[in-house]
């Protein structure tokens, strides 16, 4: 919200307090000044100039060469505005001036061959309005050579304040002024006016009836007769333009002025357009169509609070008036509405219509029910003054059940318990009194306060403690340098995933972080997708069901920019409906699992001077997965299953299982899946369910003494049928050997015509040793030869080189 410092000074004495001090203290008391413009600073170099002479530019049709008198000298200035004329008083920016719009400095310049010593400014360049159609032409009264700060009264400071939702009381100039009065310990005073009413009684001119008393606790109205709708005077226009509002006419401007002064939104009805000169406040019983004063037809849901006359609705209460009762230039008599509506009712309507106005913004945050009459009278008097109208005697003030001031108890020791610092009692009382709270009970240890109705946020003891701390100043509460730590168990639920990250990096993988919101096509690849009710776009309308689609997206994007060799991983949550037909009603209806994906594509090794290039293949992927499992001691806990036939994602793949439950799956990604991502090279990926992996108990680690006895190595190679798998042979070797055989390594594998059709050669190296003794040649040979014979017969294999 924009606030004018000059306007604030009407209600609180801020003379001799530097602007920066005001800005700092407001921010430090909770009304954060996000930005401010000090006109005195901004316009300090601009002066009033006089155009003595205007000639056409010799080299440019649209430019003029002017002689500008600055009070002390005549300067040649090039001007591009169509409206510059001899004899005008104008705003002149001498060399060195910073122009607000664009924040640039005026230098001596040569424009199309003619020198220019300054600039004649438009309102837009000065940021006084958006008008850049021509230069700003000043009135005769201003003095040439003088600063515009003085001559144009550009001496305000405009503060842009961020008001938090709890501080509805600060959404006006008096609201901010009250806080300033507390901060600087100054007197605050309400605007002064004298009400001049005519003899005509308001009750004879109009009436008000509240039907929905819950949603409209108070409705106050004043009537002003025989007004003239016209432009507002300059002082009023200026007040409004300074805070960014556009002046309309004296009636609308006054209602806006009072809203920004007192915080009470007002609405002015053309009284003659109200049937029966009657106001009825009630909620709609059916869905209704209504045209608001911006000429838009709006569909109102059942239960919308409306302002009606004796026959029809004339305004959406607290949100916007209707076209049918709008004020125009021929309006003579008006009814000014100043009401207090139930915040949640206004918010519901505003949300339902997607229509937020300055009025609804305030009503849904709470408008002080105690000051509706003040605001109505203030507006009536201003309208009467500015439009030559007569105020009817009295007001229509319907307030069936008075909203009481709340009582709050404050225990002084509680201030210490929360803040950890003792603020003196006198200081506490001073702060609360300045904020408008009244003491109704006093004792040594506690006081009871009455909270004014403009502070709905002060309901409990803790609310008062916050106010005390806020005004006392958070910076004045000490920062202790010692903290207490309880000795209870400390846990880190992220430790496991962090370890996985470390190992993944050491395997050469880079980590991705992807947006879990994705398009339907991607979310449909795997699992049962969950839809977002109010997505930002179709590209982000679903939650990811797996990490694979977005990882493929990243692969595609990187290939496009020339990064074709990728080794990536990601840890993130995926979301699936448990039953695709069942809507989410509780946490059992969906799963949110943490997953881990590894994805590789392109080359694992570029060609270098001493190394051939190599592309990623299935065994690289499998190797990475196994390396990781060894590191986390799950290598002998999980087992593999292999699938040649593929599924919807993979051409061929394998799974890691724990007690027959699948923990991870991965392989070579199918061509037609890759096609959806425009990927033309092979991609391999593997996805673990980290939530499940986390829970599996790893083999406990024990120290093994380094071997004291020698190892013996034996090699053999067999020719097998092609259908025999590595896994079968390995299992058989282990089964057919004594415990002296400790490990088996496949060191060669090939197929060749020379071996015979559908034959392959597998060469193994076997490692024998014992932890207790040195083995004899004889016992190893016995074991080894036995094994050879068993393999021969079991697989009908031929021992090579025998």
């Amino acid at each position, binding site marked *: 919200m924009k606030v004018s410092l000059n306007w604030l000074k009407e209600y609180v004495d801020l003379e001799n307090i530097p602007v920066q001090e005001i800005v700092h203290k407001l921010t430090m008391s909770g009304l954060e000044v996000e930005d401010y413009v000090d006109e005195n600073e901004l316009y300090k170099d601009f002066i009033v100039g006089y155009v003595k002479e205007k000639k056409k530019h010799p080299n440019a049709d649209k430019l003029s060469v002017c002689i500008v008198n600055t009070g002390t000298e005549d300067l040649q200035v090039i001007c591009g505005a169509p409206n510059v004329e001899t004899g005008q008083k104008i705003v002149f920016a001498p060399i060195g001036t910073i122009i607000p719009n664009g924040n640039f400095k005026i230098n001596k310049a040569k424009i199309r061959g003619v020198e220019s010593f300054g600039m004649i400014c438009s309102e837009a360049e000065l940021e006084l309005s958006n008008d850049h159609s021509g230069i700003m032409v000043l009135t005769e009264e201003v003095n040439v050579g003088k600063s515009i700060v003085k001559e144009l009264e550009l001496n305000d400071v405009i503060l842009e304040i961020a008001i938090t939702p709890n501080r509805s009381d600060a959404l006006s100039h008096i609201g901010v002024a009250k806080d300033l009065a507390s901060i600087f310990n100054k007197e605050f005073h309400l605007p002064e006016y004298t009400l001049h009413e005519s003899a005509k009684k308001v009750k004879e001119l109009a009436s008000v009836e509240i039907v929905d008393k819950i949603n409209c606790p108070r409705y106050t109205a004043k009537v002003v007769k025989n007004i003239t709708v016209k432009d507002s005077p300059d002082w009023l226009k200026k007040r409004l333009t300074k805070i960014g509002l556009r002046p309309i006419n004296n009636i609308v401007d006054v209602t806006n002025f009072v809203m920004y002064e007192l915080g009470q939104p007002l609405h002015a009805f053309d009284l003659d357009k109200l049937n029966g000169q009657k106001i009825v406040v009630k909620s709609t019983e059916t869905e209704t169509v209504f045209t608001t004063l911006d000429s838009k037809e709006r569909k109102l849901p059942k239960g919308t609070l409306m302002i009606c006359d004796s026959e029809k609705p004339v305004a959406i209460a607290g949100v916007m008036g209707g076209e049918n009762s709008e004020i125009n230039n021929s309006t003579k008599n008006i009814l000014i509405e100043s009401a207090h509506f139930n915040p949640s009712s206004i918010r519901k309507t505003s949300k339902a219509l997607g229509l937020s106005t300055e009025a609804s913004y305030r009503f849904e945050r709470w408008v002080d029910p105690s000051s509706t009459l003040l605001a109505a009278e203030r507006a009536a008097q201003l309208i009467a003054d500015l439009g030559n109208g007569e105020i009817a005697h009295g007001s229509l003030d319907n307030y069936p059940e008075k909203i009481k001031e709340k009582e709050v108890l404050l225990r002084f020791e509680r201030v210490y318990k929360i803040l950890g610092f003792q603020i003196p009692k006198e200081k506490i009382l001073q702060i609360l009194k300045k904020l408008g709270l009244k003491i109704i009970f006093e004792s040594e240890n506690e006081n009871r306060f009455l909270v004014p109705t403009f502070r709905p946020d002060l309901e409990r003891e803790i609310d008062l403690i916050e106010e005390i701390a806020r005004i006392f100043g958070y910076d004045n509460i000490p*920062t202790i340098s010692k*903290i207490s730590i309880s000795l209870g168990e400390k846990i880190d639920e992220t430790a496991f995933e962090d370890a996985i990250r470390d190992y993944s990096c050491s395997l050469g993988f880079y980590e991705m972080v992807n947006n879990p919101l994705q398009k339907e096509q991607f979310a449909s690849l795997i699992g049962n997708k*969950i839809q977002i009710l109010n997505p930002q776009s179709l590209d982000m309308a679903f939650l990811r069901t797996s990490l694979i689609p977005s990882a493929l997206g990243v692969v595609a994007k990187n290939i496009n920019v020339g990064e074709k060799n990728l080794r990536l991983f990601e840890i993130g949550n995926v979301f699936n409906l448990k039953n695709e037909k069942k809507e989410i009603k509780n946490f059992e209806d969906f799963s949110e699992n943490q997953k881990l994906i590894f994805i590789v594509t392109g080359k694992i090794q570029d060609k270098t001077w001493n190394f051939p290039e190599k592309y990623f293949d299935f065994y690289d992927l499998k190797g990475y997965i196994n390396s990781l499992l060894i590191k986390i001691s799950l290598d002998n806990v999980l087992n593999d299953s292999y699938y040649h036939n593929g599924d919807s994602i993979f051409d061929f793949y394998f799974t890691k299982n724990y007690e027959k439950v699948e923990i991870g799956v991965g392989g070579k990604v199918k061509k037609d899946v890759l096609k959806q991502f425009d990927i033309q090279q092979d991609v391999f990926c593997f996805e673990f369910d980290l939530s499940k992996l986390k829970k599996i108990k790893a083999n406990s680690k024990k120290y093994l003494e380094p071997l004291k006895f020698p190892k013996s190595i034996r090699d053999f190679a067999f020719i097998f049928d092609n259908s025999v798998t590595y896994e079968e042979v390995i299992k058989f070797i282990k089964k057919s050997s004594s415990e002296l055989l400790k490990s088996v390594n496949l060191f060669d594998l090939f197929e060749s015509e020379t071996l015979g059709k559908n034959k392959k050669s597998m060469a193994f190296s076997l490692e024998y040793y014992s932890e207790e003794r040195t083995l004899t040649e004889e016992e190893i040979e016995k074991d080894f030869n036995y094994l050879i014979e068993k393999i021969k017969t079991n697989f009908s294999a031929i021992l090579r080189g025998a």
Partner: protein
Amino acid sequence: MLDERIKKITAHFNQDISAVKDTKQLEELRLKFLSRNGLVSQLFDELKNASKEEKPVLGKLLNALRNEVTEKFNLLKDHIDSLEKESVEKIDLSLPGFERTIGSKHLLIQTLNEIKSIFKGLGFSVIEGPELESDYNNFGALNFPPDHPARDMQDTFFINSDFLLRTHTSPVQIRIMEKTKPPVRAIMPGRVYRNEAISSRSYCVFHQVEGLYVDNDVTFAELKGTLVAFAHQFYGENLKYRFRPSFFPFTEPSAEMDITCFLCHGKGCKVCKHSGWLEILGCGMVDPNVFDNVNYDHEQYTGYAFGMGIERTALLKYGIDDIRVFFDNDFRFLKQF
């Protein structure tokens, strides 16, 4: 007679060996002195002719000569061998080495881990919670009344009227307190979602770290102390800070913590909107209504909570001007950190 010849041959050998430069000359030297017909062998042959008395003495001398010559010869041979070997294997040491790839964690995770380690050092546990949350945990239990404008502070992605994507990590506070009795001391990192237009400054997904400490006598002064200690460790010892009042439905009093802008050192720049200050986190004392919602006695217990955004922190620390960079996963970006 023989002993003089011994001296002579010693001198002769010493003279010859000093001229030997390569294997060929070395071989010549060997043939001349140490071969079967070499000068040293000849001397041994002559020993036969020596008298009975002289024999032991001369024998000793001859042995000493042979040892000396052999030793010197071997030393030189080793030296020449190693020289020649080097010249054969003289490799180009400037050729590139065979580099292996060490990957890296995402910059956001690296930043998060720095924050985690500081708070772990201060005795905080690290707890996680789900991203798809109930409206109650995300708002209701945290004292956001239904139909209250406070909800406008956080634009929400809904799944339906009761479930949503969490807009902050604060619901994990509720989950912890519902499960555990005080004292509770934990940080809660995680991913959160806001239905805000995507730009260089905001993204619909980002990361937060939440903190919570509840015990018998937790105070606002201790909250300040803890966060100042964090800021000093994370941003540097010399920074200035300030706490200013703010509003969050689940804390009261609520505050925001600013530190001096480390880009302009408080003078004012574009990044700090000319204020000289950068907002780094929100915090406050846990609202009694929140304690009521998790059945903690708000008379007995007090607590503080805080929350900070990781992206913003990383943007500031690494001079990145577009938040979308974090979610693009451009390999050229990932490799930089």
